[in-house]
Structure formats: structure tokens, C-alpha cells
């Protein structure tokens, strides 16, 4: 599994190098400098491709080796109970969604309202499989966003979007 991941990572690295290399031709500068602003990006691009190649090659070789020596490794079955508490990729995707909406609404709606909603939903996402105390969640969400807002604006003098409440 981790070997296949290395092949993937290596390929991404090669792709990054190629993209960087082509983009570097769009960089403009005074004409007559031998080492200009496109020099280091191009070096980096070449290194990306080389390192990506090495990593993919290592991954490929290791996969072959694993195939010949280990016929089949015992598949560990996950406990049903454990799976209930294991997050997996879905909570990550939900978290990103909630964070994205939060940031998008931050300026128009304001810090307090969006933060309170964000905290509430993020707690719900992270408390997968646990007993949920919704009353506590609401109190924590509301209190922490209000306290954070006034603490930072009044005491620490940091600008935070006030939005529709401001």
C-alpha cells in the first residue's frame, strides 16, 4: 500500500516539475541577465522531476519485491466497534466543507455568527460515534465565539470582521 503511495507521490512530483518548468517561461524580466527570476524555478522543476522519478522507481521496485516474497499478508479485520469511532476520510471532507463555507461567509456575515455556527458543526463532525450533548455544544459554540471576538477586538486590538452585527 505504502509502495503504491510512493509511486503516486513520485508522479505528482514529476507533474509539478513539468508544470513549474512550463510556467517559468512566462516569467518576464530585464532581458540581459544570465541568472534571472526564472533560473531557480527551473532548477527546482528539474529537481522535482528527478526526485519524483527516483521515488516512483523505488516504489515500483519495492512493489515487485513485495509481490515475489510475500504471497498474501493476513488481512486484519477491523472491529465493528472500532470502526464506529474511526473517522476516515468522510469527516475530513465534511470538515473542509464547513471550513470553506465559514471562510466564505466570514466577511459578509461577520465573525461571531459564522464562528458559532462553525464550532457547532465542527464539533458534530468530530464527535462521530460519541454521545452528543447538544446543549453543551450550543453553549460552547456561542460563548467561545463571543468571548474570542470581544477579547481580541477590545483587549488585543485585532481587527475581526463584524459583519451584520457591526
Amino acid at each position, binding site marked *: 500500500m505504502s509502495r503504491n503511495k510512493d509511486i503516486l507521490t513520485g508522479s505528482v512530483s514529476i507533474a509539478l516539475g513539468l508544470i513549474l518548468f512550463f510556467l517559468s517561461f512566462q*516569467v518576464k524580466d530585464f532581458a540581459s541577465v544570465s541568472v534571472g527570476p526564472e533560473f*531557480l524555478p527551473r532548477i527546482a522543476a528539474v529537481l522535482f522531476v528527478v526526485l519524483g522519478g527516483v521515488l516512483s522507481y*523505488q516504489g515500483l521496485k519495492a512493489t515487485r519485491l513485495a509481490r515475489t516474497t510475500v504471497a498474501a499478508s493476513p488481512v486484519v479485520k477491523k472491529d465493528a466497534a472500532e470502526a464506529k469511532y474511526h473517522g476516515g*476520510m468522510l469527516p475530513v471532507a465534511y470538515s473542509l466543507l464547513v471550513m470553506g463555507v465559514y471562510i466564505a461567509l*466570514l466577511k459578509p456575515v461577520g465573525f461571531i455568527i459564522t464562528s458559532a455556527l462553525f464550532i457547532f458543526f465542527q464539533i458534530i463532525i468530530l464527535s462521530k460515534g460519541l454521545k452528543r450533548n447538544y446543549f453543551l455544544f450550543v453553549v460552547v459554540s456561542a460563548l467561545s465565539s463571543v468571548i474570542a471576538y470581544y477579547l481580541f477586538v477590545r483587549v488585543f486590538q485585532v481587527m475581526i470582521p463584524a459583519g451584520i452585527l457591526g
Partner: protein
Amino acid sequence: MVITGILSIFTVKTMILIFGGTAIGIILGAIPGITVTMGVALFLPVTFGMQPIEALSLLMGLYIGGTSGGLISAILLKIPGTPASIATCFDGHPMAARGEAGKALGVGIVYSFLGGMFSLLVLFFIAPWLANVALQFGSYEYFSIGIFSLTLVAGMSGGSLVKGLISALVGLTITFIGMAPITAFPRFTFGLSELDGGISLLPALIGLFAVAQILEEAEAGNKDSKPIIADYRIKGFGFSLKEFREQIGNFFRSAAIGTGIGILPGLGGAICNVVAYGAAQKQSKYPEKFGTGIVDGIVASETSNNASTGGALVPLMTLGIPGDNTTAIILAGFLIHGITPGPLLFDTNGVLVYGIFAALVVSNIFMIITEFSGMRLFVRILSVPKHILLPVVAILCVIGAYGLNNRVFDVWTMLFFGVLGFVMKKASIPSTPLLLGFILGPIVEIELRRGLMKSRGDFTPFFTEPISGTILVITFIVVAFTVWGEFKKRKLKKGV
């Protein structure tokens, strides 16, 4: 200058900030899932409105407290509160399981303090000297140091040199965005005017170290088991004078390892505690007892991780290169207040430098007092569930990213780096090289081009100038050794 600097922190406000920073640092360090780096990043926005010495005193308090605080959960819960106390679990928890939690905590706290103070002495004497040497450095030397730091971190922080280098390259590439150095032509901005100034350090750091962590916790999910906390009362210091005398050799070795690794750019507590533990075991007369709950293991781990704090500040304050992840955030703290750490710092801001030294000493003293007297409180806070804590941490991240320039764009940057950090973790690519590439990228590029201007396009001075050449040779040796080591490891695997 030295005395003015030291006196500058003895105001009520600064003292409260150091004390508060240390206490909060201990708590954040003790809570698994919140690292010292994350804690310091969260508190950066708090310092926006402060005087530089107040701000840096607070950050130093958090750094010292946080690095030590990890031992509490390492011993009581068998979960390292921060990566810097991984090796503390090895012997700390067996001891606690035997009913000697108080002793384990006492040893951990005292040696944290001693290790921290040892490294501060080193910082106090080495930093001004090194700054003086660094004043002579020109473009060639800075370029070589940059390359050396990047390869060193790439080789040592993840196990795979190739992955480490890819990570460093990603960091380097991100710095290409924005105005190119020297000629100030925008490049790689994709037409976005927000990118003209490049990507700000702070949102990137918060994303990499805080948001990525939240995503990881979301993926890991919950284990619905209440942690069992052992009896944590400490009698006296928890250990005898005889035991103290037996550990003197171990202490100095671990302190030297911690400070030394701390000084190396990008490598800090997370690595040195394991190295020091390994060294203590190897040198011990009874290596088989390690892991069963002996004092030696805790001494090695806790001495070295706190000894790395003073060490990590050496390159930061003399060269502007962070010695570990947390000092990278502290670097951002300096920059926010318009101070650029580097060899000139000792000339232009000498009072501030010695103020920071004093703040570090005071913070270490606060740390030992607070941990001995406030253990009951810290243990109680450990039981705050992560699923409630992390979302609150997230909104503080947003304040930190937004508050710097009052742009939502920076918050998006933070999220982008959070995702990047998470994906890299999944691909087992270490994030420290990226961080260092990001910080050193501009230095490497500017100095390369400046050096080439000076030599009229000739590359040879980078190799023939004595200091620069030596550093590049060392870099080459490090790479050769790492490659050889990986090669041997692979062969060994094949043989089995």
C-alpha cells in the same frame, strides 16, 4: 546593554505575560493533539498590539512551558503531549503504572528545568559570538548555509531523503510566488493581485501546523475510553540526592545532545528526545532495564527536549534561520513587530536580545514552580474532550490568519496549507523541510543572484570561498552519508 535588557522585562505586565505564557504553554503542551508549535501560533494574534519585548516574552513563555508540558500526559496518559516527549512515555508510563507517577513527574520537571537552563547558558555565550562571526558572511556563505540547512533537514526529519527533498522543494517553490527578488517583477501570480506580495508566512504556518492537525484528528476519529489517571502526588522533588548524583553523566550527555540538535536548523525537540534516549540506553550499564520504568530514561528525554529550546534559538537569533518548527513561528513573531532576526540584531536591538534571554530564564523558573504547584489543575484540563477543543482552536486560527493583514485571502491561504499539510502527512512526507524551504527560499535565491552579480555570473566563488566551500563540502558529505545509510537499510531488508 546587558543590564538594561535584563531589567526591561521586570515590569508587572511583562512578568504576567511570561507567567501566563508559561502556564498556558504547559497546558497546551500537555493536551495531546495540540503541539507547542500550534500553541505559539495561536497566540501570535494576541501579540499584535503589544510592545516587542512583551510580545516576545509571552512567546518565549509559551515555548518553554509547552516544551515541558508534554511530559505530564506522557507520564500519566502514555500519550506524548507533544512529539518532543515521545521518549518520556517509554519509562515514564511504566513508572506511573507501578504507582510511582509522582516520582516520574518530579524527575521530568526538574530535568526539564535543568536542561532548559543548560541550553540558555549555551545560548547566552554562543549566540553573541556566532552573531559576530555571521557579520562577516556574504552572499556566498548565506547561500551555502541555506542549502546546507535544507539538505540536512530533508535527510533527517522523515527517514526518506527523497521525500524530505521533495518537501523542501515544495516550500521553495511556494516562495517563487510574488515579486521576484532584486528586480521585483511579479511571477507565478496567476493574475491574482493578492499574490503580488507572495504568500505570508503566518497563515502558511497556522495552516500547516494547526489546520492540518484538526483534519488529522477528524480522520483518526474517537476512542470512547476514559483515560485512567494515576496518583500524581509528588513528595519533595520526587527523587533522592543519590539518584541525582547517579544521573549527572546522563544529564550532561542528554543536555549536549538536545542543545546540539536544537542548534541545527529545523531540527528540535521532536528528534533529540529519541536520540538522547537511545544514547543513554547505549551508554548505560543496564540497557535492558530501559523501558521498564527507570529514572535514566526520563532524565534523557526531558533534559534533551528542553535543552533544545535554547539551542533552537541560536540560529534564529544569529542567522535568522529557525532551529525548529516552533522557532519558525517565533520568527514570524519577530517579523510582525518589524524586527528581523540575524547577526545585526545584537547591534541594533541588543536590549531586546538580552531582554529575551532574561525572559527565557524567568520562564524556566516559572515553569518548574508552576508544574510542581499546579499539577492538580493541569491534570483536570487534560480531560477536556478534543472534539470540543479543536473547533475552538480553529476559530483562533482564523483570527490569527485574518488579523495580520485584514484579508480573507490569508484565511484561504491558511486552509490551503492545512490541506497541503494533511495530504503530505498521508503521503508520509515530512512538513518541516517544507517550512524551512519556505523560510530559506528567498534567502537562497537572493544570495545566489547577488553572489552571481558580484562574480559576474561565475559560480566558482561559491565553492572556492573558504567558509562557503567548507559548508558545501559538509553538505555533500551529509547527503552521501544519508544516501549510503538508506542504501544499506534497503539491502538489509532485501536480505531478510
